[in-house]
């Protein structure tokens, strides 16, 4: 009996390990590639163990950049990506929590119309409205600026709906108790609603940060200057069409570096993130 129990426990673990291996192996390969000299990779004889060029490759990736057309080092690109991802995540949270507050707690003309308008934008992701958005951004002189990178992506129907759902579960009596306690709309928002939304905000932050970090199409359009490039675009530009010229070891090092911030965000906020998904603090 005990034997069987052990086997039954083993099987799911085995499956999980296989899954992890499938997901993690390419990442491992990328890491290995980032520690060898270019010749080895170009020959197609890449070994499965890390090589001796770790420090040199990463130093070059971060501070020097490739020798090809794109000379921007990774440091600048990381910074650009960070600004964009933070701007998008924080902007989305700030805007959507405020609009959800308005929609749930205030009676104003065309409230439902506003709600449905927000809802409808769910069906219009950046890719669909890319031309008009680009035109507007260009007319506002937002090309090659941080504002241009973040602002058009900040409005978020998903986050607004999420906060709305959460606010609807907050008991009405809490609002009433606040009113009796002399808290106006602003105090209620600041003293009660915001602290209660803490875990929700954390969960959203993680999701939105990664969403922002991984943006490709929009930054590709809106930035032309090398020093405004985000890292995702940067990686793409490092890969030159003729294979021989691509410095694969640097591309891979850059890819590894590009992965670090999202991973760090997930790890740091894991606890709050999970709580935000499973538990409502009421």
């Amino acid at each position: 009996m005990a034997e069987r129990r052990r086997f039954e426990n083993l099987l799911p673990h085995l499956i999980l390990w296989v899954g992890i291996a499938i997901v993690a192996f390419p990442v491992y390969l990328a890491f290995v590639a980032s520690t060898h000299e270019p010749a080895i990779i170009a020959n197609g004889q890449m070994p499965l163990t890390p090589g001796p060029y770790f420090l040199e490759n990463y130093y070059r990736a971060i501070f020097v950049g490739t020798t090809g057309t794109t000379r921007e080092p990774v440091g600048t690109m990381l910074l650009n990506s960070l600004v964009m991802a933070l701007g998008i995540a924080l902007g989305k949270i700030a805007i959507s929590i405020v609009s959800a507050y308005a929609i749930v707690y205030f009676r104003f003309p065309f409230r439902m119309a506003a709600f449905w308008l927000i809802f409808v934008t769910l069906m219009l992701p950046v890719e669909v409205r890319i031309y008009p958005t680009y035109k507007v951004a260009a007319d506002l002189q937002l090309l090659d600026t941080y504002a241009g990178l973040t602002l058009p992506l900040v409005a978020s129907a998903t986050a607004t709906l999420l906060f709305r759902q959460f606010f609807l579960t907050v008991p009405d009596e809490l609002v009433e108790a606040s009113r009796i306690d002399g808290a106006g709309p602003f105090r209620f928002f600041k003293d009660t609603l915001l602290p209660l939304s803490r875990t929700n905000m954390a969960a959203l932050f993680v999701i939105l940060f990664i969403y922002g970090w991984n943006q490709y199409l929009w930054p590709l359009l809106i930035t032309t200057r090398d020093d405004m490039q985000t890292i995702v675009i940067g990686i793409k530009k490092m890969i030159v069409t003729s294979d021989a010229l691509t410095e694969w070891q640097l591309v891979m090092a850059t890819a590894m570096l590009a992965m670090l911030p999202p991973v760090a965000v997930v790890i740091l906020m894991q606890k709050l993130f999970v709580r935000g998904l499973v538990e409502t603090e009421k």
Partner: protein
Amino acid sequence: MAGVTFREVRKIYAGGIEAVKGVSFAVPDGAFCVLVGPSGCGKSTLLRMVAGVETVTAGEIRIGERVVNDIEPAERDIAMVFQNYALYPHMTVYNNMAYGLRNRGVPKPEIDRLVREAARILEITELLKRKPRELSGGQRQRVAMGRAIVRQPKAFLFDEPLSNLDAKLRVSMRVEIKKLQRQFGTTSIYVTHDQLEAMTLADMLVVMNAGRIEQIGAPLEVYERPATTFVATFIGAPPMNLLRLAAAELSGLLGASAAVPPEGGILGVRPEDLVLAPAGARSDGGLALPLTVETVERVGPESFVYGRLARGGDVIVRIPGAAAPSFGEQAVAIAPRHKLHVFSADGSRRINS
């Protein structure tokens, strides 16, 4: 401190539901007023209008001399205790109690003094640092009370504050609420549909039905002289027995001097006012109802006998002890004349004095 006065107060909710249909009464300064009535009769609505968290459709509510219809809840100087307590989940007990004072700009040392004083009275001093989720139901209830008394308002408003507690705790909190109210002498309006709470807490009992007031009076007065059949059956458990009688039968029971309407009326008699006598017994000048015993509920100190009347209809008799007759036995339920209640045929009016 101040009384609360209602004048022709109405509430029509969006959607056209008329929850309160013109209510006028006054709660004197320092009185403990209990609103009772069946679910949906508008008790909470009325209370929430006093608190200011619901608008008044028509009429006028005064707290003291001031008409408060258009005054913000915070400026009405009232405190409310909610059924689900509505404590701020992310604040400690201390902050829950201090929040209202802070918003009013009370100086810090003064807040500290008031909170600690309230905590001492409610014996929750050692809970001050905890969050509401770390408290038991009874402790949360105390904190909710603390949040109310800490501000020393003109009036306390309670909306079924004890209904989430278990039976035992409910009794002890009930006693405590009454004690606190006496101690502070603060005008209180208390909504409940628990009769025992209503009877024991109230100086002034207001029985509501379908958005209207059925009767106002001291609890015992309401019990002894219910104004309508609704009040008669609502106050008292098990409820008063009601029998529809023709005019001749009624005047036979009440004596020739009583003014009995020609269409007859409704006779009421409480289960506890009936006595069971052996079959064939008569009552001199009172009521005698021959019956067959159908069910007996023995609860220890007393028993409830459910009988089927020979003349048709059911009756409940409450007798002391457990020595009740058994199923199928014949008996007579007897009550003296002065224990009888007589109402008009539609039940809307009491006829005898």
